[in-house]
């Protein structure tokens, strides 16, 4: 059965979504890529992976480069599809949704932060932050107050009308955080958010991310090489040999 728009949450309060203690669940997820263009042979990235992200908790995935951490994050966020298994977002299986509903689910329930602080180059800091709300169908006038308050909260009140090219790496990443928080998502998914920053900025971003998640009662799924950052999260998983193993915390049974 297809989920209704109400389940996906076309309104900001999303009372239905708040009933879920596990905003993201991965059930027996397997991901394989074709080894070459001609399609002969496959490379296994993930094999029967189970993962559950609890509401209000931070979870970090660590592992070597090429182990499949980012792939896991993209699958968890509905950016990519698993070869086998299920990914549930607030109880809704991504695989059962068409592109419109899947995009809407991503827009309202998940906030992404990437290493390369992918901002929209021609948009000002304020417009970048307002983008998810405008994609959700809200007007610029309606979105502006929350975007401004987020920018103020992250110390970017004087940078609202600057273009990304006029901002430092740390500032850009903070704007990416504001943008991820704009639609009050249940889960923040961060892929190496401090990877491109110097130590000072990296620590600032780490602190902000963890504090914001705790304060707002959101969940954080973090992929990082930085073990110090990872071990400040509630749960830490190591991705090795296509599977996850719990390194810290209690984890959560799917």
């Amino acid at each position, binding site marked *: 059965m297809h989920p209704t728009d109400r389940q996906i949450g076309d309104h900001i309060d999303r009372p239905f979504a708040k009933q879920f203690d596990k905003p993201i669940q991965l059930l027996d997820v397997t991901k394989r890529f074709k080894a070459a263009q001609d399609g002969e042979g496959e490379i296994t990235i993930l094999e029967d992976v189970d993962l559950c992200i609890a509401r209000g908790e931070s979870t970090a995935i660590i592992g070597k480069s090429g182990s499949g951490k980012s*792939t896991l994050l*993209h699958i968890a966020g509905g950016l*990519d599809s698993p070869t086998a298994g299920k990914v549930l977002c607030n109880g809704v299986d991504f695989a059962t949704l068409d592109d419109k509903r899947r*995009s809407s689910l991503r827009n309202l329930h998940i906030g992404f932060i990437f*290493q390369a602080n992918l901002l929209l180059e021609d*948009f000002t800091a304020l417009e970048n932050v307002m983008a998810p709300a405008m994609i959700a169908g809200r007007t610029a006038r309606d979105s502006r107050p929350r975007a401004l308050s987020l920018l103020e909260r992250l110390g970017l009140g004087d940078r609202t009308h600057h273009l990304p090219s006029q901002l430092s790496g740390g500032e850009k990443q903070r704007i990416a955080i504001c943008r991820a928080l704009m639609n009050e998502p249940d889960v923040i998914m961060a892929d190496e958010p401090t*990877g491109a920053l110097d130590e000072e900025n990296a620590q600032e971003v780490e602190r902000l991310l963890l504090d914001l998640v705790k304060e707002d009662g959101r969940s954080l799924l973090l992929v990082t090489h930085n073990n110090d950052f990872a071990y400040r999260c509630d749960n830490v998983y190591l991705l090795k040999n296509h599977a996850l193993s719990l390194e810290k915390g209690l984890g959560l049974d799917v």
Partner: protein
Amino acid sequence: MFILRTALKYAFSKGKGQRTSSVVIVLGIALGLAALLVISSVMNGLQTAQLDQLRALESFDVSVEPSSGNDGLSLGLDDVSGIPGIDFAFEYIETYALVVDKTSGKSTSARVRAYSNDAYYSERMAQSLHFIAGEPVGMDGVAVSYTMMNTLSLHSGDDVEVTFLKPGRTATVVPYSTRMAIGALFGSSMTEFSSSTIFVDYQWLLSLMGESSVRIGIYTQNSESVASRIAELSPDSKAVTWKEYNRALYSALMLEKALMYIFLAFMFLIICVNLKNSTRRLLRNRQQEGAMLRALGCTRATVNSIFVLQGVLVCLIGEVIGVLLGILAVNNLQALLDFADTVARFFTGSATVLGFLQFQANTSPLEIMLSCGFVFILAVVFTYMGCRRTYRHEIMEVIFNASY
């Protein structure tokens, strides 16, 4: 709203020459459309003016003549005048003659025309045909134009020998020569008509050529319907509309216009290829942003529509500027020609033909709409083609490549 805002920002983005590219395309479309508008308006104006003169003097709107094999019209002037939609109808005779000036020995062939009395004073005729000296009605002699006077080195009051071919008793036609004085002088708005036509008195020519040579000329705004009504009333008569009479010229004018449109269509085609390449380049440069937009919650269709819309916006802006420029140029055509003449005179030091040209521009809203529609469809198709092939990558792949 987000799509429109993003498309507009993308279309005129400062980065990687996108703004320059879009501005060049906007200018190309604007100038092309303005040129199209000016050229088509001027051509319409010239066409209308030329055809109006032809219809007034040469062919009339409809002329009724006996069908081949019939001896004279079976339809009278009163029958024709009673047909609804006819502004004015008159009898006339047309034949050909050789005009010789015995003094100078010069000769020329001429079309001889004679209109029934009131035809010369009808509104349409009087606008294009002027008698400078003498009266055409009851004229004792022949009316010639200045051009023919110059051709034959004639002077006012001279005699000319005119040789007609009149119906004979035993032979079909026999030559008939007579000396005629130049009894009137005329001018018309068509040089070719003036230089090849002479007028004689209608009654005199009627007595010479006989009733079978009489035709009926008609002025009407509904030539097609009048012609078909005449065909219904009298199958023995042949009603020739001005389009049929001037078929060669009319077709040439249409062909000229069609060729101009084809030529300009090629220009728009080239501009739209640029639009396609610009969109493709934009898409390549913005692939990561496209992927980011998808991560933020845009559907694939939304992201594609942003890229298509930016091309459409560039086209629409070009069209609006083009139409405004075109209308401005058409309304100030004479001033533009004077300016061009001044510039040309500055460089050449002498007056140019531009200063004497008098254009009557005639803008057709339908042609403007069709031209805009054509350019718009072309732009949409080419922009879509620019988006279609490039945006193939999965978002995860693009974001992954952007991150590492």
